[in-house]
């Protein structure tokens, strides 16, 4: 309530004529124009260029970047043409696999970071303990470590010559893309897998680790101020009214932090999908480990800039969707505050 009133009154003040300074009007116009120009040059123009380049060969060219057919079998055609089609089909297949990999890695990282972030924000926000400041600094560490170094840390830990090299290089786990439903007949575990992967770095697992490392501050950091401001009283009240720990979390804690959580998830998702440095090191440049940003670079280096931009447009699209969600979230929050729900972010 209060916030809204304050905002309105200050808006009114800004809108009104200021008789003391006659120049207020043109100052406002100049500042606004400068802002618009700045955003235009540094945000809108590059973004528009991404889409322009992505569609530079028309819609069919755009689609071709993701779905390209190999050479028809049994049809005679010049060697060079045939090889070009093989390349295009293989490129498109790898692009699709990079999208799937990004979704898998990003989602896994976000799920982990939500669990970790909520736990960390909870611990830091609600309890006092020795070494708390140190813990907060450690949570912030990925912000200050270069992502490439982050990737190298995992290579140094889990690489063949690393600290846990012996164990890690022989660590076998199922390829998530090969997991399928085999049912319960005869098994207690209903999932089977066709493929096993070995090792940690240079496999999707390494990519997940690298991504989690560089993204873990996002959820925790966006939750901490809210959780801290929240205090413990509402939760204690819920407990005293007979709610279980889970009920308290689900019905009291979560609704209070939902906007902050959503915001953190959004930041975390964008970064997880867009991470390059850390992932680049632990991917071992292997095509099967490509995420969207790695793939964009490879396409660019294969002189296929249209396909690179087409793929990049997906990330740009994600950014736009994030912007949209943020808009809706802000609007919803304002609405709740106006209604008196007090959705404090």
């Amino acid at each position: 309530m209060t916030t809204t009133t304050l905002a309105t009154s200050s808006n009114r003040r800004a809108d009104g004529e200021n008789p003391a300074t006659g120049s207020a009007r043109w100052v406002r116009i100049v500042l606004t124009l400068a802002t618009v120009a700045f955003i235009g040059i540094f945000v809108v123009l590059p973004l528009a260029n991404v889409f322009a380049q992505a569609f530079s060969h028309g819609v069919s060219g755009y689609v071709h970047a993701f779905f390209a057919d190999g050479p028809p079998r049994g049809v005679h055609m010049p060697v060079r043409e045939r090889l070009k089609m093989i390349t295009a089909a293989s490129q498109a297949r790898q692009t699709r696999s990079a999208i799937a990999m990004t979704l898998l890695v990003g989602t896994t990282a976000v799920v982990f970071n939500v669990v970790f972030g909520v736990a960390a924000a909870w611990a830091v926000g609600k309890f006092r303990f020795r070494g708390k400041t140190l813990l907060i600094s450690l949570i912030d560490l990925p912000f200050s470590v270069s992502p490439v170094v982050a990737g190298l840390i995992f290579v140094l830990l889990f690489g063949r010559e690393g600290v846990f090299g012996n164990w890690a290089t022989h660590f076998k786990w199922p390829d998530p893309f090969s997991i399928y439903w085999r049912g319960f007949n005869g098994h207690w575990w209903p999932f089977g897998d066709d493929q096993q992967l070995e090792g940690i770095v240079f496999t999707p697992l390494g990519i997940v680790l690298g991504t989690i490392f560089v993204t873990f501050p996002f959820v925790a950091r966006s939750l901490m101020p809210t959780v801290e401001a929240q205090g413990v009283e509402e939760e204690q009240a819920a407990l005293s009214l007979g709610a279980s720990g889970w009920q308290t979390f689900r019905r009291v804690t979560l609704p209070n932090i939902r906007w902050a959580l959503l915001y953190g998830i959004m930041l975390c998702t964008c970064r997880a999908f867009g991470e390059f440095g850390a992932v680049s090191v632990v991917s071992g440049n292997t095509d099967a480990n490509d995420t969207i940003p790695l793939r964009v670079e490879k396409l660019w280096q294969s002189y296929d800039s249209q396909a690179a931009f087409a793929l990049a447009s997906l990330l740009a699209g994600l950014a736009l969707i994030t912007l949209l969600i943020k808009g809706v979230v802000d609007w919803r929050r304002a609405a709740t505050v106006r209604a008196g729900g007090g959705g404090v972010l």
Partner: protein
Amino acid sequence: MTRSILFSLVAAIALSAPAFTRPAAAQQTKLLNVSYDPTRELYEQFNQSFADYYKSQTGKTLTVTQSHGGSGKQARAVIDGLQADVVTLALAWDVTAIEDAGLISPGWQDHFPDHSSPYTSTIVFLVRKGNPKGIHDWADLIKPDVQVIAPNPKTSGGARWNFLAAWGWAANAPAFDLSTAEGKQKSDQQAAEAAKQKTFSVYENDSARKFVTQLYKHVPVLDTGARGATVTFAQKGIGDVLVGWENEAWLASDEFGKDKFEIVYPGVSVLAEPPVAVVDKVVDAHGTRDVATAYLKYLYSPEAQEIIGQNHYRPRDTKILAKYRQELPPLKLFTINGTFQDWTRAQKTFFANNGVFDQIYQPTAK
């Protein structure tokens, strides 16, 4: 609201596991080929060709995954645990490094024909259309207003070939036209003699050292890989001349049109022999030794040699090489064994920490 967040999370997880209800497919054979930077297109096409061949021979489906990067960096990744079944790198030293880590058994150079090197290449110049700076041979690279684009010899295999080519030219290394039987014989003879020698004056050659020092003063940025350097030159439009792989020069001129670039062949260059090898430790663990060996052997088949020629590498098969004479003209080449004895020696002298390259190269920015 919370319910919808939970729901979307669940939905996202479900969507990201697309093959969730797939029935068990037949066991697929997989190979990982760890290669150097410019061979992307070559292996993309070769892999398809080999997979078809393999299926026709065995009925099994084969998936080959590629990994490309600076040759030295790639070797490092294999040593660090990248599960490469085969390596197809830019130079023998990088394979030797993997051998030293105990992953490849010694003697790998004798497992396949031509020192396990199914194709060769050389170092040429790529200049902008019309050759505005008049670059025709190595000497022209150090003209005052020439900017040279080349990758970093510490990470890139191609860059090390660049370095050796420049050094060999400046040291007047004897070169031969290897497309003729006579030239080949002379070259082999020279290599055999070199193997017996203890000291190599070429490493102490003052004019070579001076020339190479000068040359790297003309390089504004060092990319980590050959492809990065090509992109810098061709796509970003930086520099007057790209010193690099013959195949990279051709690829750039194919991709961007003949009206943009010209390829300049210097009077003398180096014979680059990119080696291939099976990574013994990995194939034994994966049980892929047979398919990996077949894969590399197939590189010497006529079909593969054709793909190699199409991608502007020089096929070992003389008949197919002759077919591409227009694009891959004969020129005088010196070999690493004839001129520098072997890669181990060249690597230690030139590219090891505090080697010649570290002594002569200071980043221009500082």
